[in-house]
């Protein structure tokens, strides 16, 4: 039985815009266990992006707490929070968001460089991850020289290379055609199975929902359904 990697406890998030208060999340509680492959789905405005932001420490809840690896990230600030994200969370964004001026290899190495990992170790890890995500031989290319699917594979490699506790992916297939998206998801699923890495997706893509072992449906800022599949 895996332990909780991430625990969201009674989290609410209220945004104030032009004097109007919007309840993006209402007392959401959720636990993610190690090695889970979870999809958080729901219609637009249901709060899934807000929840993912709060789970990753990119946003702070109005109330409630978020524990990642047993540590409360909602109270962390500045460099402490940056370092924590760097060491414990991998991010995959909707539109790849690789650093355009860095090569594939440099993009993947970026987090390891921030962590102060030596060159030899970096080289080994980069070679290994490139092989795992199926983009060997492209390490010296710039992101603009890759297809969307290839760029997203680099993003997956960047997210995984530092062995984070959890990988949070926001609509990772949104900008990909269905075949490329399916291939990417299959690859992530294989990595999840092979390496036991925890994935949480925010999505409304049925391909992700179909492949997820756990499906959390948000509606109006609340958990409407939380289903574990076999």
């Amino acid at each position: 039985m895996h332990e909780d990697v991430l625990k969201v406890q009674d989290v609410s998030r209220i945004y104030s815009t032009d004097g109007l208060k919007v309840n993006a999340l209402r007392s959401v509680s959720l636990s993610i266990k190690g090695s889970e492959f979870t999809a958080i789905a729901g219609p637009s405005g249901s709060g899934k992006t807000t929840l993912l932001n709060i789970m990753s420490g990119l946003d702070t809840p109005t109330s409630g707490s978020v524990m990642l690896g047993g540590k409360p990230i909602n109270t962390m600030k500045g460099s402490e929070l940056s370092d924590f994200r760097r060491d414990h969370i991998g991010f995959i964004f909707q539109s790849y968001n690789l650093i355009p001026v860095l090569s594939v290899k440099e993009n993947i190495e970026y987090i390891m460089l921030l962590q102060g990992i030596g060159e030899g170790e970096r080289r080994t890890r980069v070679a290994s991850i490139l092989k795992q995500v199926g983009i060997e031989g492209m390490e010296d290319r710039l992101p603009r020289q890759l297809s969307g699917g290839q760029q997203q594979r680099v993003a997956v490699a960047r997210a995984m290379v530092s062995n984070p506790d959890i990988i949070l992916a926001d609509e990772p297939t949104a900008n990909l055609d269905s075949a490329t998206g399916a291939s990417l998801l299959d690859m992530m699923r294989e990595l999840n199975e092979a390496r036991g890495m925890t994935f949480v997706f925010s999505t409304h893509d049925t391909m992700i929902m179909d492949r997820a072992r756990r499906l959390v449906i948000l509606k109006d800022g609340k958990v409407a359904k939380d289903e574990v599949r076999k």
Partner: protein
Amino acid sequence: MKLLMKLAWRNVLRNKRRTVLSGIAVGITLASLIFIDGIYIGMFDSMIRTATDSFLGQGQIHAAGFRDTFDVEKVINNSRDVMKSLGSEDLLTGFSERTVSTAMLSSAAGVNSVLLYGIDPEKERGMSMVDEAIREGEYLAPEDLGRIVIGSKAAETLEVETGDRLVITMAQAGTGELSQDMLRVAGIFHMGIREIDGGIAFVNIEKSRELLALGQEAHEIAVKFKNINDAGNRLLPIWKKYSQAGNEALGWRDLIPQLDGVMEMADLSTIITSSMVFCIVAVIIIHTLFMSLYERMFEFGVLRAIGTRPVSMSLIIFFEAASLSFFSILFGLGLGYIVMQIFSVYGINYTGIEFAGVTITELIYPVMTIRQFTFFPALVFVFSLVAAVYPAVFAARLTPAKAMQRSM
């Protein structure tokens, strides 16, 4: 650190057109600053040279108070000892004693009041430009006691030419008795300075001493320094040394206080110009960095999200400012050097313009100094970094979620 520098450098090169345009703008401001400073130095060097070399001398020794009244009885105390002592001064390249008195010149056509200088013709050759300014006739010879050199304006008023006779009338020292003599015009000089060309005349010092009944005394000793900068240095002990026993020794700063005042004003004006230039540099740098920052807002959000510390975000901005500034400075130095070289060959023609009581008589050539190519670029660099503080703080304070509003 190396990674952040690499990232910053590549970001600077990312939008080449913007970088080049900003670099050119900053470079031009630096080149302007170098050129303006060079022109100021060149102009004031020329003005000091014109003012001191034409006749004044770089420094003068008188009896205290003589310059206030031009009283012919106020002769230099112990002038023989002073002259002997000046002969052993290492800083000096020459000196010459003079008598100074008002005199009336009369011709058949008119009269003209002048300040009559009795000079040692040979020593005066190295002191002033009187000999070089002779346009008609010739300069005085040492044994020439019966001749006079007058300015072009005075010659015009008196309607005389070389060889014509003039009657000179002046009051003797002590008794105030009038003394007169008839002198032939040896030469007519033209310095291009109205007051000098119309109001000064030269005779042999032996003749003026005879007319003034001064014996071997003198009213003024003009001195010339090996280095003109020494003449402007009030702190040199030489001034104190000769400002004793009722005498006063003054450098050109005190002899032409209006020029010194204008130079001080020019220094202030350089500071104001520099400040404005640095403000322009700051605005260009801030604008460029913010343009670049806003363009990459999402990317900055990603960098923060994946673990880049706030301080590292600031460092990226500082490195970008430093890179931009570095190449702008290289361009500015190159441009400044080329412009200075061009104008140091062709000069700028301000001749005839009177400024601070000195008429500019030669082309102005900008002067290159080490300061222009070290201190100014260093200031531009520092200002660029100071200008980067605001965007750097902005980048450091970016919250990933807000920066990436399009996504997570």
